Every structure is written in C-alpha cells, then in structure tokens.
C-alpha cells in the first residue's frame, strides 16, 4: 500500500530532474565496451594532438593491468561491455543559449542553469553526454586574464599549461577507474585564475548525462594562482534508466601559494548511476581548499576527495552530506595528507540513510613527520531513519608526529521516537516532524551550499520522506 504512495513520490520529484528524458540523439556514439580500437576512435573523433592520443593508449594499458577495488560497495552490476564511453551530442559548443538545440536547452532550462547564470554566476559551462554544449564567462573576468573553458579547448589552446598539470595531481596509476578515465575522458572544464585575481561570484559547470547505457568521463582542471581566489560549483544529474550508467569524472585542483578555492558539488545522479569519481587538490603554502559536497543520487557512489597539504600553513575544510535512500549505496569520504608544518584540516560530515539505503563515510588523515604543529578535527554524524538502513563511519588516522592537535568525534544515531512525539505534540504531522528533524540535522551543511541547491536539498528531503510512513 505504501508502494502506490511511493510511486507518486518519485513522480513528483522527477518532474524536475529525473523525468526529462530526451531522445537518445547523437552525432556519434561509440560502440559499447572498452578496447584499443574504441579508444583510438574516440581520440580520432576528438581530434586529439598526438601526445593526448598516446596518453589515452597508455592509460588503457594501465586500466587493463589494474584490478577492481577489493573493498567498498559491490560493483558487480557494472559491466564495461555494456557501456558506451563516448557520446557526442548533435551540436558543437555554443556561447549563446539561443544556439543550443531546443531539447538540450529545455533540459538545462528545467534545471535552472541559464536563470542562475543571469542572477548569480560569473560563468557557466554545460555538458550534455560527452561534450560541453555551452560555455560562457563574464567579460570583466576575461579582461583580468581568467580562463574558463571546456577541456578540449584548453588542450588545443593552452597545451603547455595543460601538459604540465593534466593527470599530474591524480596519476593514471591511482586506481582502475582513474586509468579508465585517462583513456576515454571527454569534456569537463578548465579554469585558470591568474595571480591575485579574486573571482567574487562563482563559476558553475553542470553535467547532464542523457544517453542510456553510456558513461560520462569529464575532466576538470582548475589552477588558482598565487593569492587568487575562486568558488567553483559543479552540479550533475541524469534521467533514470533501467540499465546501469557510469560516471567516472576526474577533478584536479591546484591551489597555489596563499590562494583560496572553494569547490562545491551537488551530485544528483539518477538511481541507476555508478558514480566512481576521483577528486584531488594540491595546496601550497598558505593556500586553502574548501570542499562542500552534497551527494544524493546514484545507485552506487565511491567518492573520496583528497587534499594534499604540501605548503606550510595550508588548510583544508570539508563539509559534506550524503543521503542514501532505497537501493542506494553511497560510499563517500575524505582523505587528507598533511605534508608541511602548521597545516590544518577540518572535516565535518553528515550522512542520512533511509528505506534500506547505505551511507558510509570513510576518512583517512595522514600526518607526515614534517607536519609539526598541525591541527586536525574530524566530526562525522549519521542519522538512520529506520531499522532497515545502515550508516557507518570508518575513520583511519595515520599520525607520524607527536606535535599535532587531533580531535575526533563520531556519532551514529537513529531518528528518535521521542523527538517525533515532541514535535507531533505541537500539531505537526509525523511526516513533517521527521522531515523537520532531518532538515535540522542537515542544516549545518545545507547552509554552506549555494542557495538554490540548499532549497533543492530541502525539497529532496521532504519528497524522500513523503509517503514513507506506515
């Protein structure tokens, strides 16, 4: 009986995000699977320079050698022979929304992207399947030397800087999926903020995967030069299909001396998505990386952003939330390596699970002997909304110096009947009482999200809890 309720619930929500399912139209879709021929064909399609073509083929060799991870969620459902790794939409990149084909534009309209661009963004990139279909940046930033473009353009127009940084932060040998990414990557954003330039309002890239049984492998490379600052937002979503889709993005962030980068992610993939993403930042002296992450979608996620604090006085802050509902296994976390003195890291994570969902948070804090006087604080909290669901935090710390301040706090709890009764005794319905408790639990994180995403997140919580009772 609650089944029928649940159906309306999915329908309600999907009107925004999961329902818009355009025809699978493309100008090129690679064969399913991953072979040398396919990688060569992708490279051909993309007009790669020779070095990139070689890079892809080497990465493929590495991919073939590496094993699947032996820990974390089960990936049996992922069959690479069933995934098309490259889907070129039937348009090239535009700099005006008017020129973007109608159905693609309507999708981004529904996601509120052009609207947000007008109101609150310094630049926008929009990727549809494997290629970026729209890119723009405010004129005054261009004048200050800020570069914000799709990755392919960067490879073509800024070869030196790309060669110097591309997959240097996340090496291809890191794990099997990074190697896969190296072989078939396509799309993504490139940002360069020159010395001393403060980009006051955010840049945002949005990724939409429309094509069924395919993968998205965008590469994001951001360099914030000395004393500069940037807030970058990435959002992602996809319509729901019956078969597995794959997302294997890679994000490389270089935060130079005294620079500041805030990297916000709202991940709202549909629940047939395998999200195996890799993100890493290298932070130099006095620099700061802030991660703000909301993970709500996907069937399986394995996502553990990593910060390498290489310079003295550098800082990392992580604020993240994940919400695992029915059929979801969200395995997220954070790694930080303290490599220099007076570095600091703050981890603040919350996870929510309901309806049999699994939310796991893994953290690894490594403090090298050189990182004297470093400070670390880790706080993980999880909330389970019923007995079927699981939440876990798995902290590992590897601290190799005495001179360090470390605090760790983990709380795992179930939503309490007494709290629900308290709220209901004030006339609030059971559904709303639960939603209120969950929203309140999430609030310290949601207040860090860009406003429209915070609103989206609250709507999501409300919808997820609707009809989940009795």
């Amino acid at each position, binding site marked *: 009986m609650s089944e029928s309720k649940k159906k309306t619930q999915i329908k309600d929500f999907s009107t925004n995000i999961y329902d818009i399912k355009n025809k699978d139209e493309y100008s090129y879709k690679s064969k399913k699977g991953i072979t040398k021929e396919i990688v060569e064909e992708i490279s051909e399609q993309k007009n790669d320079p020779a070095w990139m073509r070689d890079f892809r083929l080497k990465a493929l060799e590495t991919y073939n050698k590496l094993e699947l991870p032996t820990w974390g969620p089960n990936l049996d459902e992922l069959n690479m022979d069933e995934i098309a790794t490259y889907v070129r939409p039937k348009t090239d990149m535009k700099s005006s929304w008017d020129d973007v084909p109608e159905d693609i534009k309507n999708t981004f309209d529904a996601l509120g992207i052009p609207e947000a661009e007008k109101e609150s963004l310094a630049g926008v990139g929009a990727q549809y399947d494997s290629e970026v279909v729209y890119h723009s940046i405010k004129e005054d930033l261009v004048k200050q030397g800020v570069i914000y473009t799709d990755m392919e353009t960067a490879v073509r127009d800024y070869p030196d800087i790309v060669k110097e940084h591309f997959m240097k932060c996340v090496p291809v040998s890191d794990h099997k999926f990074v190697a896969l990414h190296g072989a078939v990557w396509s799309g993504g954003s490139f940002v360069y903020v020159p010395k001393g330039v403060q980009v006051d309002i955010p840049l945002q890239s949005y990724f939409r995967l429309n094509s069924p049984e395919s993968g998205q492998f965008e590469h994001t490379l951001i360099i914030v030069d000395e004393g500069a600052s940037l807030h970058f937002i990435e959002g992602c979503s996809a319509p729901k299909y019956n078969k597995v889709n794959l997302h294997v993005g890679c994000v490389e962030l270089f935060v130079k001396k005294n620079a500041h980068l805030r990297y916000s992610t709202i991940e709202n993939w549909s629940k047939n998505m395998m999200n195996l993403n890799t993100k890493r930042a290298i932070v130099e002296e006095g620099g700061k990386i802030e991660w703000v992450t909301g993970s709500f979608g996907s069937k399986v996620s394995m996502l553990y952003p990593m910060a390498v604090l290489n310079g003295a006085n550098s800082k990392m802050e992580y604020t993240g939330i994940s919400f695992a509902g029915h059929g979801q296994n969200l395995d997220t976390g954070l790694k930080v390596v303290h490599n220099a003195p007076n570095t600091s890291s703050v981890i603040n994570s919350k996870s929510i699970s309901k309806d049999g969902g699994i939310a796991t948070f893994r953290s690894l804090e490594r403090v090298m002997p050189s990182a004297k006087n470093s400070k670390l604080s880790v706080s993980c909290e999880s909330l389970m909304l019923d007995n079927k669901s699981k939440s876990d935090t798995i902290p590992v710390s590897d601290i190799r110096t005495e001179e360090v301040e470390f605090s760790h706090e983990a709380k795992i709890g179930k939503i309490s009947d007494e709290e629900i009764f308290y709220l209901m*005794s*004030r*006339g609030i319905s059971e559904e709303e009482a639960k939603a*209120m408790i969950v929203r309140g639990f*999430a609030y310290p994180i949601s207040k860090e999200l860009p406003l429209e995403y915070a609103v989206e997140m609250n709507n999501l919580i409300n919808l997820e809890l609707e009809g989940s009772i009795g």
Partner: protein
Amino acid sequence: MSETLLEIKNLHAKAGDKEIIKGLDLKINKGEVHVIMGPNGAGKSTLSNVILANPEYTQTEGDIILDGENINGLKTDERARKGIFMSFQSPKEIPGVSVTNFLKYAKIATTGKPVKIFEFKKELEKNMEELKMKPEYANRNLNVGFSGGEKKKNEILQMLTLNPKLAILDETDSGLDVDAIKTVSKGIKMYSNENNGVLIITHGTKILQGLHVDYVHVLVDGKIIKTSTGDLANEIEAKGYEEYKK
C-alpha cells in the same frame, strides 16, 4: 453552569505489558485549574502522555473526551490540533531548527492558517520578555544547549504562543530556581482564562502561589484516589504521601 473541557472515564493504559494507568477518572471544566500530585512513579507523566496519544503507551480501556468529542482514536498531532498541549517533563532538543521557526510551524499546524510574520514575531518578543527570556533565544536551536530551567520556560513560551484549550504542565517547576518558578506561574496566569483549562503536575506548591487552584487530585498507583480543594496541596507538601500508600 460551567462546560466540560476534558473528561476521562475509566482510563487504563500500559507500556509494553505493564499496566500503569489502572482505571482513572478525571473531569476538567473550562476555566478551571487542576493539580495532580503523587509519588514518583505513580503514573502522572504516563497519564499526560496517554492524553496526547504517545505511541509508547497503549490505551486499553476507557474514554478520553475533549469538548464533547471522543478523541480515543486520534493521533498525537490530531489531538494537538484539537487544542491539547503538554509542557514536557524533559523537553527534547532539536538541532538545526530555530525556536522561532519551530513555533511558526507549530502555530500554522495547530491553527491551520498562515501566520502573519510581523505580528507573530512581535507577540513572540513580548511573551519572551514576560518570561524573562533573552531575545537571542528566539534564534537558537530548539532546546539545544538550554539549561534545564531555560527548557521549561521555553515550554511555557510554546504554550503562550499556541494558546491551546487544555494545557498539561508536567513538572514544569522541577529544577527551577525560585524566580523562575514565579515566572512560570506568571505565564500560567497569562494563559489561563474562562475558556481553557490547566492541569498542573507538581511535587511542590510554589508554582501554585498566586494561582487560583480549583481542585487537587492525588494520583497513586495509576488511580486518582483523592480529590479536594487547593488546600490539599499544602497538606501533602507538609505530610507527604504516607497515608495514601497502604
């Protein structure tokens, strides 16, 4: 001729297999202030919880009638919307929800009407001032990090804001300093009128000073075994419950 507000007839209730309320009758008319006293573990909090249909307890027999309507089958939130309020013996902490937002929600939920924000805030400020609560508490997370006394005042603030038909105050005075008890009494006086009813559960008489108490009931072992006028409270305070326990 006064009108009946709440009537409880032959109430039995249990938690798990354990019967706690064992045939209890109580009648409160509009405009009246009632007091229930009784030893620890007698069932006072259980009674209040059963009146509000806390799912922790099962009502096995009897009737609860509010304003002429039998509310036996109604859920907690429905009963609250009919006008029953309880000041909790241990109010819950709700992180991430501010006092103001919570009260706004609760007000909308109980009245079924939108609130006018400006007037709502004005009234809230006024009530907080009357209860000697610092204005910044309006923005704090509901009960989180509040001292015991602050939580209790916050319950009274909720009562004043929601203005229910029947207010049950479960040991709102316990753990309060002398001044805070006076403030709570003042809150009760502000609330009480000829159209509503108050049921005060207490172990002391301080909270009753300055209030006109119509009836005092003694609750022992899940039953009301004696009902008398206001003086009974003083007598119990002086002599204890020895004579009521066999």
